[in-house]
């Protein structure tokens, strides 16, 4: 795989991760990430056809809780760290597009 992280890839990753990078950051990340990805490429020299991906080392499943209330925060506690609020809501600049995913 081509491991050159060009400007376009950096800009795409920055957009996806909502980072408004400066020109110099884009240039710097392009160089640094290229070097890192080139190094990471070594994993693709290993043959892993018959190897299961290991997302988790802990051999557990079905960790489920009973459907019982555990209490909530007060409105004041919930908003205590909020940069901006209005009438008990979190306040943000007007959302113009409907981009909800659910």
């Amino acid at each position, binding site marked *: 795989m081509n491991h050159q992280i060009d400007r376009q890839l950096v800009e795409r990753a920055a957009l996806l991760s909502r980072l408004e990078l400066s020109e110099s950051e884009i240039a710097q990340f392009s160089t640094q990430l290229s070097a890192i990805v080139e190094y990471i490429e070594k*994993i693709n020299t290993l043959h892993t056809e018959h*190897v299961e991906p290991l997302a988790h080392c802990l051999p557990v499943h079905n960790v489920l809780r009973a459907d019982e209330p555990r209490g909530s925060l007060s409105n004041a506690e919930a908003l205590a760290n909020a940069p901006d609020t209005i009438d008990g809501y979190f306040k943000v600049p007007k959302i113009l597009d409907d981009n909800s995913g659910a």
Partner: protein
Amino acid sequence: MSDFQTALELRDAIAAQHCSSTQAVQQMLNRIEQVDPTVGAYLSIFADRAIQDAKRIDQKIAAGQPVGPLAGVPVAVKDNLCTTFGTTTCGSKMLEHFVAPYNAHVIERLQAADAIIIGKTNLDEFAMGSSTENSALRKTVNPWDSSRVAGGSSGGSAAAVAAGLCAASLGSDTGGSIRQPASFCGVTGLKPTYGRVSRYGLITYGSSLDQIGPLTRDTADAALLMNIIAGHDSRDSTSASESIAVKPDYLADLKQPINGLRIAVVPTLNAGAEASVQNAIEEALKVYQSLGAERIEITMPHFDYAIAAYYVIATAEASSNLARFDGVHYGYRSPNAGNYIEVYSKSRDEGFGPEVKRRIMLGTFALSSGYYDAYYVKALKVRNLIRQDFVKAFEKADCLMLPVSPTTAFKIGEKTDDPLQMYLADIYTIAVNLAGLPGLSVPCGFDAKNLPIGLQIITNAFTEDKLLRIGQMYQSVTDWHKRNLPL
């Protein structure tokens, strides 16, 4: 300067009323005031609160009431552990003024043990780094040489123990962040098995890799801390229940040496460390052999791929875990944001430092469409291969011993321009996190510059009791861990 007391010694002294907790805490606060402006271990100090807590404990002891196993002992916690008192900053501008609405599980456990939480320690921003230079809020130096780094990311926790600014501390370890600073600062550091300590309230970096663990003066203190913080917590789905692994009393058999200890070593790996480190490890192995241990040479064929796999998995998880820092619900919001999209993009650009952004970018790339299978899924497969290497190693041996870091503490600023070089120094610690195993760092000597060297011991999952006993065997016949600072 007098010897620093261990947490266990201090606890016993307080319990026996040879000294009061209030005195111990006050002395510690005085020392912090004197020394920490140089060391820079702490991001916040809870002086009044600590004194009040200490007085309460002293009253309980005086009244003959039962107290917890760490009663009156001043401890420090890494500032990525949520506390309802003070701020929880993660060493980031993003959370500089953040006050958590809840306490982390380990904080509750420390409080239940009657420990005195004296302050919160510096770290690489969001625990991303190996030198604590990535903290956006403070510079921490190595107490052994102030021109050098304390290691990271739990640099503040390691420096605080080394400089006598707390009796013991908690750190977190995602790729070596407890063991490496412990090694650089000459203290004992334990990264427990994944799932042994609840992550509830630990601000997440890499969810499948993070573990909280103790940084202490010796293995006995590490065992004492593990008795307090380990165990199941229903609020963390990845916390091991008793049916997975029973929690032992880590102090009970600590002093029992392990007969016929089989130690695995990987000669090709050790050869990658600088000479002073290699020598110190060889000397340590000789000490064990003199105690009757057997040395077995093995290979770990996939160890060499650990860094590559780690930087895919950890950054992929981080890119998602750190998405929540968006300037909407808490944390830094850019004053320059015109619309709601800019609230995200400007707040995140201004609120995060370069290393955090680099890792978010890398992780986003690894998860993005077209690259997911080649990088993320592939890395998970490599992770499995690495775990299998360990499984095979533990069929032949009780433990694996190797260096913690290829070098001793490096100069401040030495590696900041080359992130890849910084990553490559994690070679000895990272595989342990990928395999979810416990790893212990114990001081095993000094180099020519009088900088501490750490020996890393790794055992099978959920055998921290055995791991600590192996460490204790060494510390019972050596005194590297008792060396005091040249200050």
